[in-house]
């Protein structure tokens, strides 16, 4: 035995050293934080998540953490398997997607575009559009619709070709809606002009609403939704949409956004944009008044339950307006000031769940508040505070840097 002492000691040294490191050394004592109520109903803070960094000691690599009403979670405390494997796809961070994967694992395979989902009490639907290759014999795109009947658990698939020419172009699903037995697939796409229909030097941006008859499984309509630009051309145009804030929720309308990055002297620095309210049933796109969507430095647009919420927290005051797209009426217009909360300025603001969420700093303490988006009445004020074993550490709050605020969506009706 004595002869092998060197080997035995080496093995013991290695296993004890590394074992002790993983048993004790990797546990870092970092303070925990939470969002605490100062005034109002604490339930109002349930949807708020603050992204932050905590720079302890060395300050070279601060730890990233997320703070909510229930406490904080450091990114690096999650296992390698969770960070690298389970959270490898950002879409799986969404709680609804995670739940659907648990409930409908086979149906959810290979479905990675959140805008392509539609769900109501009866159906879970996923639609995708695949443009043909540049040299494809058939220039049309292929539309695929995957349907899952939630009551029977039976899945089915429809496949059809579009009439337009998208060969070599781009097409992305922006929204999927079901109106009775008609499924609407709203897409933005860049298509090559058909031969003999203008120079084929550049693709043309288009909005399309593909209407699928769910009874026959055929493409019933291909609506090329018209839009206008300031100079009438399609050059430098970028198309996008604003759809229901709950990405899968039924809705009868969507907002179409047209931005033109011009090169002329009048528009060299300013992006020109137009918004349209698109009604799925009638197929009509109605341009919204420019006064509704006046561009500010910090403007946020959210569509919820057929209402367009426009929030602009460009200082000194926060402006929030709500417009009813069905009636075309202004529902509310409010102005909020940081001074109402005893602060100099808002750091950030969000509109979601029928609420306006703001983040600010008061006397060096990160604070946040919640107001009703219709009346502007402050419902809640809260602050970030350290909790747990290191709650009394004076350095805890000094080392904390709040970076950004996000607001989780609540199921419709929860906050209203």
């Amino acid at each position, binding site marked *: 035995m004595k002869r092998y002492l*060197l080997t035995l000691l080496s093995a013991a040294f290695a296993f004890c*050293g590394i074992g002790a490191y993983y048993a004790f050394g990797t546990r*870092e*004592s970092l303070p925990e934080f939470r969002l605490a109520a100062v005034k109002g109903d604490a339930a109002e803070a349930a949807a708020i998540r603050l992204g932050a960094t905590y720079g302890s000691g*060395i*300050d*070279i690599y601060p730890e990233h953490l997320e703070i909510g009403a229930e406490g904080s979670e450091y990114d*690096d405390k999650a296992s390698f398997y969770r960070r690298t*494997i389970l959270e490898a796809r950002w879409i799986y961070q969404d709680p609804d997607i995670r739940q659907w994967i648990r409930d409908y694992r086979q149906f959810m395979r290979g479905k990675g575009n959140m805008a392509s989902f539609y769900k109501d009490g009866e159906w879970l639907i996923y639609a995708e559009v695949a443009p043909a290759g540049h040299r494809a014999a058939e220039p049309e795109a292929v539309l695929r619709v995957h349907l899952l009947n939630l009551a029977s658990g039976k899945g089915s698939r429809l496949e059809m070709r579009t009439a337009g020419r998208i060969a070599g172009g781009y097409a992305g699903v922006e929204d999927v809606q079901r109106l009775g037995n008609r499924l609407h697939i709203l897409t933005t796409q860049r298509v090559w002009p058909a031969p003999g229909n203008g120079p084929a030097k550049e693709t043309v941006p288009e909005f399309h609403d593909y209407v699928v008859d769910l009874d026959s499984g055929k493409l019933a309509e291909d609506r090329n939704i018209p839009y206008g630009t300031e100079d009438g051309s399609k050059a430098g145009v970028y198309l996008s949409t604003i759809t229901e804030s709950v990405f899968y929720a039924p809705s009868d309308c969507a907002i179409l956004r047209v931005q033109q990055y011009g090169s002329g002297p009048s528009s060299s620095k300013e992006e020109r944009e137009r918004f349209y309210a698109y009604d799925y049933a009638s197929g009509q796109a109605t341009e919204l008044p420019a006064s509704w969507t006046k561009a500010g430095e910090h403007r946020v647009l959210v569509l919820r339950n057929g209402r367009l919420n426009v929030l602009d927290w460009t200082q000194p005051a926060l402006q929030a307006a709500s417009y009813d797209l069905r009636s075309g009426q202004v529902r509310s217009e409010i102005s909020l000031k940081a001074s109402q909360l005893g602060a100099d300025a808002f750091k950030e603001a969000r509109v979601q769940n029928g609420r306006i969420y703001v983040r600010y700093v008061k006397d060096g303490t990160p604070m946040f508040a919640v107001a009703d988006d219709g009346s502007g009445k402050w419902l809640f004020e809260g602050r970030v505070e350290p909790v747990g074993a290191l709650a009394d550490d004076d350095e805890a709050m000094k080392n904390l840097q709040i970076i950004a605020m996000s607001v989780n969506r609540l199921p419709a009706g929860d906050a209203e």
Partner: protein
Amino acid sequence: MNRYWKLVHLEVGRFRTMMAGLMALTLICQVGAVIWGTADALSKRDPGSTDAWKWLFLPNGKLSLALVIFHTRVLFILPIFLCIAALALYVFLIWYRDWIGGHTFIYRLLTLPTVRRHVYTAKATAIVLFVLVLLAFQLLLLVVENLIFNGMVPADLRESSSWPDLIDASLVLAVLLPRHLDQFLWSYGLGITAVLAVFTAILLERSYRRLGILYAILYLAACCAAVVWPLAALGLGHPDAYLYPEEIAAIELAMEGLVLVASVWLGFRLIAKKVTV
């Protein structure tokens, strides 16, 4: 089994001088870096001087070992890279040194009254042991460096550093000693698989000589493809991929296991039936 342990001990004994040298080099470089870095920072902290010293200290005016390691990280990283390079080279030398020289040691090894696969497993065990010993030594060094730092810096100027801070400060240690045990097991499991694949490639070369070089290259290429394929082709981070990430991870683990088992099986066969002296 007794023969196997004897062979492991033999391999440890043959590399002990080199190991001692690598440890000594690491100790001299890193302890020297801590002493020099700390003394330098303290000497520059002259109230009458300009603010140039401040970048050596934390914003609260204190000094931490992690910060000293960060500022002298080149001296920390160099011996670590040297150790890695030496061990990587020794993966080949552990076999070829037996064939090299006037009195070829391989004659004695292969004619020992024991199954030949013990030679293969003993060499693999020795390499793993060397790696783990150097890692443990590095951890021990951090304890020693912390004691030296505490001895040099007055308590009112000292900011304590946590283990993760110390590991992160040198940059390369964060890779060698990941914070999570599952990452350590995954990384070093892959490392052990790679060593066994190289061992088998060496035995292919020893078995078939010139043609064996081609076999060895093809074998290593096949092993690399098998391990890389699930991650590269199945779309781990791609939201549209058909397989879920945990399924891709299971396939990846299975492929690594397959490479490991194939390497060991082929290595055992080669050393038992093909390697001749």
